[in-house]
């Protein structure tokens, strides 16, 4: 019968060494809300589980709106929700992370797990991408930094190499009137997987004209997809701009027909959510 080993290294370098030396199937463990569920369902059968949570700094939030935030990879959704400064600076990222699961799941679920589980429907990922988030990755050849959108390469697949794992997330310093938002569509009100998710970050000038925007859609393609935001830049998000944004979002959709929604429905709702999320981010940015 196959056996399963568990280790909980206390330093990043130990963790990297264990991961790099492992010969069989190995998984990094943060909150376990994906990993343990998959293990129990027999969908994965790793021989080694490397728990990161004993590594100092892997949980916790440092920084400020002025200098940017560093978020430990395994920081729980509940902790993000309790951090007033982070919530004020990045309401979109926090509301996305806080949508994951339920109260119980929030006590465990992390940004790193949400990203590296590599589900197209992961809630925090479009929000982190839209916010311009980057990740710090430790590996056998040292530490590197990468944009959040470069990690997921397909359903269940990431660009992380053998021996690598995510140590932290970084959200940039807030410049000027910038804010973000995240909306998802689910048939119920919680405990559901996004049929469409949308993260938007918007910067406006003093007159309320959009000077920069970044938009990411989830659950409408094998990975999160960017939406060309040029149609709203230079506008005050009037109806014409919103209509163009709706079309631009729909144009990026390449969803599947499945138990969670039809291609047609997902595509239409992507347009709806792009409009609605942009409106929230725009209003928040204007209020800065």
């Amino acid at each position, binding site marked *: 019968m196959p056996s399963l080993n568990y280790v909980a290294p206390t330093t990043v370098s130990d963790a990297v060494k264990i991961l790099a030396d492992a010969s069989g199937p190995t998984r990094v463990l943060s909150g376990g809300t994906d990993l343990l569920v998959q293990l129990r369902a027999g969908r994965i059968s790793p021989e080694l589980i490397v728990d990161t949570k004993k590594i100092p700094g892997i949980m916790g939030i440092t920084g400020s709106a002025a200098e940017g935030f560093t978020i430990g990879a395994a920081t729980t959704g509940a902790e993000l929700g309790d951090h007033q400064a982070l919530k004020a600076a990045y309401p979109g990222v926090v509301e996305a992370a806080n949508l994951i699961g339920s109260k119980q799941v929030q006590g465990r679920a992390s940004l790193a797990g949400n990203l590296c589980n590599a589900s197209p429907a992961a809630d925090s990922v479009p929000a982190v991408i839209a916010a311009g988030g980057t990740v710090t990755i430790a590996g056998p050849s040292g530490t590197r930094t990468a944009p959040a959108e470069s990690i997921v390469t397909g359903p269940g697949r990431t660009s992380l190499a053998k021996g690598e794992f995510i140590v932290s997330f970084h959200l940039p310093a807030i410049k000027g009137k910038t804010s973000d938002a995240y909306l998802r569509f689910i048939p*119920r*009100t*919680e405990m559901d997987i996004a049929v469409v998710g949308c993260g938007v970050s918007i910067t406006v000038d003093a007159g309320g004209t959009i000077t920069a925007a970044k938009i990411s859609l989830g659950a409408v393609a094998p990975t999160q997809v960017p939406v060309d935001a040029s149609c709203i830049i230079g506008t005050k998000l009037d109806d014409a701009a919103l209509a163009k944004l709706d079309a631009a979002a729909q144009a990026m959709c390449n969803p599947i027909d499945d138990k969670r929604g039809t291609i*047609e429905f997902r595509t239409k709702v992507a347009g709806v959510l792009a409009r609605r999320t942009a409106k929230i981010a725009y209003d928040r940015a204007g209020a800065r």
Partner: protein
Amino acid sequence: MTFIGNKSDLRVVGTRPVRPDGVDKVTGRAVYGADATMPGQIIGKVLRSPHPHARIISIDTSKAEKLPGVKGVITSADIPNIPSEEAFVGEGPMNFRDLSLNCMARDKVLYEGHVVAAVAAINDAVADAALKLIDVKYEVLPHVIDVEEAMAPGAPILHDTLFTAGVTPKPTTPSNVAKQVRFTIGDVEAGFKQADVIVEQTYTTAPVHQAYIEPHACVAAIAADGQVLITASSQGHFMIRAYTAKLLGIDIANIRVTNAEIGGGFGGKTVVYLEPLAVALSKKSGRPVKMTMTREDVFRGTGPTSGGTIWVKVGATKDGKITAAQTVIKLQAGAFPGSPINPALMCAFAMYDLANVDTLGYDVVSNRPKVAAYRAPGAPISSFAAESAIDDLARKLGMDPIELRLKNAAKQGSKTVYGVTHGVIGYEEVLNAAKAHPHWTAPLGKNQGRGLATGFWFNIGGESTGGVFINEDGTASVVTGSPDIGGSRASMAMMAAEVLGIPYEKVRAVIPDTASIGFTHVTGGSRVTYATGMAVTQAAQAVVEDLKKRAAMIWDISPEAVEWKDGEAVPAGANAGGFDPLPLAAIALKAAKTGGPIGSEISVNAQGAGPGFGAHICDVEVDPETGHTTILRYTAVQDVGRAIHPAYVEGQIQGGAVQGIGWALNEEYIYNKKGHMDNAGFLDYRIPVASDLPMIEAVLVEVPNTRHPFGVRGVGEVPIVPPMAAVRNAIRGALDLELFHLPMSPPRVRAAVDAAKAPKAAE
């Protein structure tokens, strides 16, 4: 039987004491099916078919048997091959042979998930490994999932021995239509001729699962002398005993079943899946065998209720008198015959006093799990269509939907399509209470709508046993054969306390095993508070008679000269003598001197269960861009006869409404082209979560059922009948969308919005 349910006379009935099973349930002490253990038990697991329809060529279990830790493997070869025999043990007609074949496939598998073999092993891991070593060779056959496709010429035939019953001449070719059935009164053709307005439409509903939170579980052991012990969670331990005996050819006296605490059943636990297999595995292995389903097992292997296609036509005169109503219903039975087609037909228009009704139904098999009872089996399906049609009729007539219903309301003396004449019923009272409720006239905002629908359920009585025993200290023990799924232990204790005249806290109700109390039919059909309550009430009354005799003996007067008042024997009048009252406890203390233990066990076959009616008002807000429906406000009015414990009655009503809302909005089985269910889990089989719902307001109307001592009517099933049409009618009100198919999920509502906007091409 005398009626003792006048509200002003009641002390205990109608109050809301704490439930006796509450502390154990909230502290985790309660023993549910999966918590039960027997010394030396091992684990049993089943192997399920990956194909929706296939012939079993061979099953080779030799490799699995050789795996260390495996203690036994069974296939259909280890289960008696019993002949076809119709029976009524659970909550509907059941063919024993079909039940056997549903527990363990022989020759053919009929749905993805159909059990083909089972193993017993020392632990989960070994059992899982053993299942992988069983080699089943299949000849895959074409399959059919949809009910209309299953009826179409050339459809794959599930059973070569199934010929449509109810048609003449008797068919000579096998069919997936198990039976055709018709109920008619009057002349619908003539009725439609009198109509000024007619609505006619085809509706569909999806099969939905009962979705009890506790998966099926049992532990069973057979001893060397053939004595069988089973502990299982079910809606009837006598049902488990009967089915296990029949399927395995064991004498009933040799089986003793203990009912575990049950985590929901809703009709779905009125049949067996695991128990006969656990006993057969125990026989093979010589060890007690524990079997527990996963949620996925529950979805793939156990009964949902039917989905169906319902055509409805209703006609009325300009002033709203319904002149004719007609329906044709095709219900999915799953892999074996037995959809709730009869009640579906009978309930569709049972709320109305109609001269001309015609209902025609088909019971249709297809490659899905065999359906099982689900609250008011059949009624929600036909009522969704009928009550949507009545709503559309009201719109066409420009009439208020409650006025239209009042105008045609069934009342005492109304004749139903199935031949029964309604006795004292409370439908008009229910409609008037709905009309008077502030919800009915509250203002609505943009994209918001209000819908109303009503429903009917027969409720049943039947066989029950209840006992009341007076303990030495003057407390009382109540025993019944009815597993408690809705708080019935509290209600039983309350009825006994009422009759005995002692506080509720002095009465404890328990449910002993099948060898320790007389036969009792399943907890289903909303029968327990009615029928078992009748047995308990009669037992308590017999005890009171006995107590009076004992007091008479102590006082040395005639028993007729003793009265029972507020828990005490008192002399009937001045002539009887000047004795101080004798409280129950004082008589109990002297029981040995007055004839021994005091107690009574009564078995009844209760008749006269009063039907129940409900009217639900639902407000929704629909997001036209996403098709998402939010339930804003929900009021459920119901005639409950007499609420013994109003909080549990309200709980029944709220629960039924919520299950109906799930049925309306999101619940469905999603099959892929291979005939596999794609959503066998609660993530994608979407029952409502708490945050989806407002508080459901239950309004209790009490029109006592004079056939029950306290006036009880069953309450557990009516509340799931109206919600689908209530939600549908509300969505229609919000966006003026015509929706005819369940579930009214966001993609479907959004598609309807788009279709309504699209310019009509042909016009």
